[in-house]
C-alpha cells in the first residue's frame, strides 16, 4: 500500500509540471488586462471612486494589508467558506448515500429537494440571518446550503454508476456492506464526487459573500459594503480580487486532491 501511494504521487507530479508549463499564456493575459485597465482609466480620466487605476488599487491593497484589516476579513470569510463546505458536503454525502440505496427514501425526499432548489439562496439568506444572527453561524449555514445540492447530486449519480459487475464480484467474495462501501463504492464514486466538490468549493465562496451582504460586521462581503458606502472603490476592488483568489485557491486545492487521488485515470483529463 505504501509503495503504491508513493507511486501514485510520483505519477501525479509530471502532470502538474506539464500544467505549470502552460502558465505563461495566463500571465500574459493578466498583464494585458491590467494594461487595458490602466489605459482606460488614464484616457477616460474618470474619478477614482468610479474607476480607480491599477496603481491606486495596488496602493489600497498594501494599506489594507499593513493595517491587518484585509487578513482579518479574509480569515473570517475563509472560515465561513470552509466550515460551510465541510457541513454541506458531509450532509450531502450522507443523504446521497441513503438516496442512492433506497428508492423508497428517494421518492419520499426528492420533492422537497427539487423544491428547495427552486428557491434562490439570495431569497432565504435574510431569513437565516434573522434566525441565526449576524454572526458566523448564519453564513456557514448559507454556504452549506448552496454547497449541498451539487454534491448531493454527484454523490447519487456516482453511486448509481458503480458497475453492477463489480458489485457481483464483491458479492461473490462475500464482502460485507462496509467492505463494499470501502473497497468499491467510495473509490468508484470518487471521480464524480470530486467533480461536485469542485463546483461546491466555488459556490461556497458565493454563499459567504451573499450572507455577508445581507447582514454582517466582518468578512470580505462586509468589506465590499464598507468600500461602497465610503466611495472607497479601490477597497471594493481589493476585496473582489481577494475573493477571486480565495475561490481559485479552493478550486486549485480540489484539483490537486484529484490529481493525487485519481492518478489512475489521468488519461481521461488529457
Amino acid at each position, binding site marked *: *500500500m505504501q*509503495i*503504491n501511494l508513493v*507511486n501514485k504521487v510520483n505519477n501525479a507530479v509530471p502532470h502538474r509540471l506539464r500544467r505549470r508549463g502552460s502558465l505563461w499564456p495566463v500571465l500574459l493575459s493578466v498583464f494585458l488586462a491590467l494594461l487595458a485597465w490602466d489605459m482606460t482609466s488614464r484616457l477616460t480620466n474618470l474619478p477614482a471612486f468610479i474607476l480607480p487605476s491599477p496603481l491606486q488599487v495596488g496602493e489600497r491593497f498594501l494599506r489594507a494589508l499593513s493595517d491587518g484589516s484585509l487578513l482579518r476579513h479574509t480569515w473570517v470569510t475563509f472560515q465561513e467558506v470552509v466550515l460551510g463546505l465541510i457541513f454541506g458536503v458531509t450532509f450531502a454525502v450522507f443523504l446521497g448515500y441513503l438516496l442512492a440505496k433506497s428508492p423508497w427514501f428517494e421518492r419520499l425526499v426528492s420533492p422537497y429537494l427539487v423544491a428547495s432548489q427552486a428557491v434562490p439562496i439570495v431569497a432565504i439568506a435574510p431569513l437565516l440571518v434573522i434566525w441565526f444572527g449576524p454572526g458566523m453561524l448564519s453564513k456557514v449555514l448559507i454556504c452549506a446550503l448552496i454547497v449541498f445540492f451539487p454534491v448531493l447530486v454527484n454523490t447519487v449519480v456516482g453511486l448509481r454508476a458503480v*458497475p453492477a*459487475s*463489480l458489485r*457481483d*464480484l*464483491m*458479492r*461473490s*467474495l*462475500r*464482502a460485507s456492506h462496509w*467492505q463494499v462501501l470501502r*473497497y*468499491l463504492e467510495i*473509490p*468508484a464514486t*470518487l471521480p464524480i464526487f470530486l467533480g461536485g466538490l469542485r463546483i461546491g468549493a466555488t459556490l461556497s465562496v458565493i454563499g459567504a459573500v451573499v450572507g455577508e451582504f445581507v447582514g454582517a460586521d466582518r468578512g470580505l462581503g462586509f468589506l465590499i459594503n464598507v468600500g461602497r458606502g465610503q466611495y472607497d472603490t479601490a477597497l471594493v476592488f481589493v476585496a473582489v480580487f481577494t475573493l477571486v483568489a480565495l475561490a481559485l485557491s479552493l478550486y486549485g486545492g480540489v484539483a490537486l486532491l484529484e490529481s493525487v487521488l*485519481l492518478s*489512475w*485515470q489521468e*488519461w481521461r483529463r488529457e
Partner: protein
Amino acid sequence: MTSSLERSPSLISEATIGKQKPHEPILTVRDLSVVFPDGNGGLEALRGVTFSVWPREFVCVLGPSGSGKSTLLRVLAGLLPPTRGEVRFRCADAKGGNGLPRIGFVFQQANLMPWRTVLENITLPLELAGVNNGAARARARKLIDLVGLQGFEENWPRDLSGGMAQRVAIARALIHDPDILLLDEPFGSLDALTRERMGAELLRIWQAHQKTVIMVTHSISEALFLADRVLLLSARPGRIKLDMAVDLPRPRREEMRYTAKFGKLARRLKEAIE
C-alpha cells in the same frame, strides 16, 4: 474431505469412467429452476436442472445463447436465489464460513478495479478476508509468476491487453484458495490464438492447484480440450440436454484436437445441439 477419499465402485457413473474420484460430490444441483419476473407470467431461464460435480473435476457448460448458462453460474455463486430447487455444496473443509464454499469467479470481462494496480487487484479477495498485507502481496507475487505477468505488478489495469487483464482476473480468482472456480466465458473477448494459449494455461493452473472448475463456453472444441465432462443446456428454458464424459487422456495436447476420438466427441455434441 479425508473420509470421502475412499472409493466406492458402485458410484462410478458414465461421468467418472477412466478416472477415480472421491465418492462424494462437492456440488449437488437438484431440480433447479429460475424464473425472472417480467410482468406476464415470468421469463423461465432454467427448468429442472439436475447435476452433480465431484471434487477436482473440470466441467464445461455449453449451450446456445440465452439458454441460461450465466444464470446457472450466478445461482451457483450465490448472486441469484433460485426460484425452485436446491444447490448444495458438500465440502467438509468449506472455507467460506457457515458451510458456504469459497468461490473464485472469473467473469466474461476481466472486471478489474481500475483504481487498483495489478497487484492490488489480485490481493483484493485476501484483503476482504482480513489477511495481512505482507502475506497477501507475497501470495499475489506467486500467482503473478504463475500467470506470467512478472513486471506488471504496479501497472494500472488500463495498461493491460485483454488477455493480460483476463490473466489478472484468473489470478484474483485463485488467490484465496477457493473451493470452486466458476468461469463465465472467460476467454470470450479474446482472439482465437490467445484463446487457445489461455486455455492451455488454465489447464496448467488447474492441474497445479487441483481445483474444481465449472466453466461456461460457446466453443465445442474448447470444451472438449479442457473438460472432464460437458453439460449441454437446451435453448430457453435451459435444461440439461446431455451430460457427457470426455474420456480423453491427460495431459491434453494440441494434437488431440485432430484425433478421431476428439472428432467423434465433437460430432456427438454437435448433433445434440442441433
